[in-house]
C-alpha cells in the first residue's frame, strides 16, 4: 500500500505535458475495445486510402481499415507488451539486484559481472539475437526484450539496495535480532521496489519503441494484430500518395516515447520527497514537542 502512496505522491509533482501524453496512452490502452469506433481489422476496400471523413476521422489504410481505430487498439498492444516486458525484466532485475545489495562480497561480484555483460550489449541487438535463434512470435518477442532489459533494472536495484542496507535503521534491526528474511522482505524489498518502479518509467518509453521497431522489421507483433510499427510498414509503400497514414503512427509513437522519457527524467530529478510542507511540519513538531513529559 505504501509503495502505491509514494508512487502517487511523486506523480503529483510532474510536468503536465508528459502526464497528459502518458495518461492518454494508458487510458486508450486500457479502454481500447470500447472506444475504437470501428473494428480495427474490418476491411472495406471501397474506403481504401480514404482521407479524413465523418466515417473515418483519420482516414483508412490501403485495405480500407479505419486508422483511428487501429491507432487506438495499437495502444493496447503496446501497453500490454510493455507491461509484460517490464514485469519480467523488473522481477528478475530487482531479485538479482537486491540479493547482490544484501549479500555483498563475492555474491555481489559474480552477479554484477553478469549484469555488466548484459549491459555491455545494446538491448536491441540482444533482442534480435534471441529472436534470430528462437524465431518470431509474440512471447519470443516479450522474452527477448525482457532479457535485454533486466540488467539495467538489476544495476539500479543494486544501487538502491546498497543504499538502503547502509541506513542505520537496518543496522538497528540487525541489532534487535531481526532475521535476514525479515530485513529482506519487510524493509529492503519494499523500499527498493518503490524506488525502482519510479526509475522504470523512463524505460517504459524505450520498451514501447523497441516493440514498434521489432514489429516494423516483421520480428515482433505479427499481423493482423494492429500495432504502430506495423501500421508504418503497411503505409510506407504509399508514402507519396497518402503521407498521413505514415505520419500518424509515427507521431503517436513519438509522443508516447517522449512522454515517458520526460516523466522518467523529472522523476529522477525529483527524488527528494517533500511530503509535508515546511509550515505544516513545523506546526506538527511544535504540537508533538509539548508531549514530552518534564522529568521528575
Amino acid at each position, binding site marked *: 500500500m505504501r509503495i502505491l502512496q509514494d508512487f502517487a505522491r511523486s506523480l503529483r509533482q510532474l510536468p503536465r505535458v508528459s502526464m497528459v501524453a502518458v495518461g492518454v496512452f494508458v487510458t486508450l490502452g486500457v479502454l481500447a475495445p470500447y472506444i475504437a469506433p470501428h473494428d480495427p481489422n474490418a476491411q472495406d476496400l471501397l474506403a481504401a486510402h480514404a482521407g479524413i471523413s465523418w466515417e473515418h476521422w483519420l482516414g483508412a489504410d490501403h485495405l480500407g481499415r479505419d486508422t483511428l481505430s487501429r491507432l487506438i487498439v495499437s495502444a493496447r498492444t503496446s501497453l500490454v507488451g510493455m507491461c509484460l516486458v517490464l514485469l519480467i525484466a523488473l522481477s528478475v532485475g530487482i531479485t538479482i539486484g537486491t540479493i547482490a545489495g544484501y549479500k555483498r562480497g563475492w555474491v555481489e561480484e559474480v552477479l554484477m559481472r553478469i549484469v555488466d555483460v548484459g549491459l555491455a550489449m545494446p538491448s536491441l541487438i540482444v533482442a534480435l539475437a534471441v529472436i534470430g535463434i528462437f524465431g518470431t512470435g509474440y512471447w519470443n518477442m516479450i522474452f527477448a526484450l525482457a532479457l535485454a532489459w533486466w540488467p539495467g533494472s538489476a544495476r539500479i536495484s543494486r544501487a538502491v539496495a546498497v543504499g538502503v542496507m547502509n541506513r542505520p535503521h537496518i543496522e*538497528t*534491526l*540487525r*541489532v534487535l535480532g531481526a*532475521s535476514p528474511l525479515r530485513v529482506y522482505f519487510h524493509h529492503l524489498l519494499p523500499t527498493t521496489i518503490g524506488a525502482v518502479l519510479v526509475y522504470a518509467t523512463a524505460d517504459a518509453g524505450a520498451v514501447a519503441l523497441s516493440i514498434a521497431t521489432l514489429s516494423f522489421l516483421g520480428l515482433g507483433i505479427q499481423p493482423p494484430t494492429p500495432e504502430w510499427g506495423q501500421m508504418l510498414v503497411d503505409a510506407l509503400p504509399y508514402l507519396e500518395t497518402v503521407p498521413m497514414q505514415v505520419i500518424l503512427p509515427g507521431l503517436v509513437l513519438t509522443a508516447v516515447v517522449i512522454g515517458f522519457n520526460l516523466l522518467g527524467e523529472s522523476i529522477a530529478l525529483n527524488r527528494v520527497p517533500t511530503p509535508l510542507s515546511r509550515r505544516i511540519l513545523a506546526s506538527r513538531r511544535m504540537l508533538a514537542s509539548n*508531549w514530552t*513529559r518534564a522529568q521528575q
Partner: protein
Amino acid sequence: MPEAQPLLRVENLVTRFKSVERSKWISAVDDVSITLAPGEMVGLVGESGCGKSTLGRTIVGLERPQSGRILLDGVDLSTLRGAELRRRRRAIQYVFQDPYASLNDRQTIGEAIAEALIIMGISDPAEQRRRIRTLLDQVGLPDALAERYPRELSGGQRQRVAIARSLAVEPRVLICDEPVSALDLSIRAQVMNLFLRLHKDLGVACLFIAHDLALVRQATSRTYVMYLGKIIEEATSAELYARPSHPYSKALLGSIPSADPRIEVTREPPEIFGDIPSPTNPPSGCRFRTRCPHAAEVCASAVPPLVALSPSHQAGCVLAEKFYAESAAQPLPHPAPAPRDIQTMHAR
C-alpha cells in the same frame, strides 16, 4: 568493580578495516579486553576516531572481529550461529548516536516498536499495544506518539523512541554510543537523566561511550580510557578523575574546565600536543609516545602492559606508578561532585 561472573566479557578483541590505501589496514580496535558486571554503568572515553564506536559495533555484531572473543554470560558468541546467535545477542542493544537515521521514516513509532516486539516473539496485537504503551511511558513519551512518523518528532523524542524500542527486546546490556551528543544542549540533561533512571529502575548494564567527560564522571561507576584502538587506563570513575595515571588520561581530564573559578585559574594547561597519529601505521611501542611529554626511549620498544595500581585501577604506562603516587600527594584537582541530578550541571 567486575564480579566473579561478568555479564559481558570482551577478550583481546581486534577489529580491522581495509584502508583506502591498498593492502593497508586500520586497526580500529586493537587487543581490547573489557568486562561489564550485571547492572553496572561503565564509561568509555577517548578522542574522536580512537575506535570507541567500532568496539561497540563489534560487540553487537555490526562489525566482524579479526580475532578475540565476546562472552555473554560466559558463552562465546562466536560459537553460535543463525537464530540462536540472534536470540542471545539480542540481550545486548545499541543506542546510536544519530537519532535521525536510526528509525525507518516509513514506519510510525508504534509500528517500529511493534516490529521489535514481533522479533521478540510477541505477535498478539492487544499485547503489543499494551507493551508499546508501557515502553513509551517508560521513556517519558505519551501514547499518542505511537501514531506519528519519526519526521514529526524532535531529536530528543526520537532518541527516546530508539531507547524504547531497544528496551522492547528486554536487553541486559545497553551500549550507548554518544547518545546525547547529537542533541540540543537543553535536551541532553533530560535524556541523560532518562538513562540514569532506566539504569536504576530496570537494572540494565550500560556501556556509556562519550567524549563529554563530566557526563561520564557523574553517571558511571567505572571508566575505560581508550587511545588509538587500545585501552590505556581503567579505574573506578572517582579514582580515575582524582588520580589519572596515564599521561593521556591526565591530558584528557585536564581539558575539562572546572566549575570552580578558583581551581580554574590554577588548572594546568593540557600537556598534549599534535594530532592523533594515523591508525594505518600507529607508532611502535606505546601508541601515545608521539604526543607524550614524558616519552622516553623505552616507550618505543614495547607496548607497556597494564599495571595494577590498586585493585580497581590499571594503567598502561611505564611511569604509571610514579604518576599514581604523585597524585596522592596533591589535593584532588576536581572535588568529586555529590551525586545529583545532571540537570544542575548545565544550569550552572
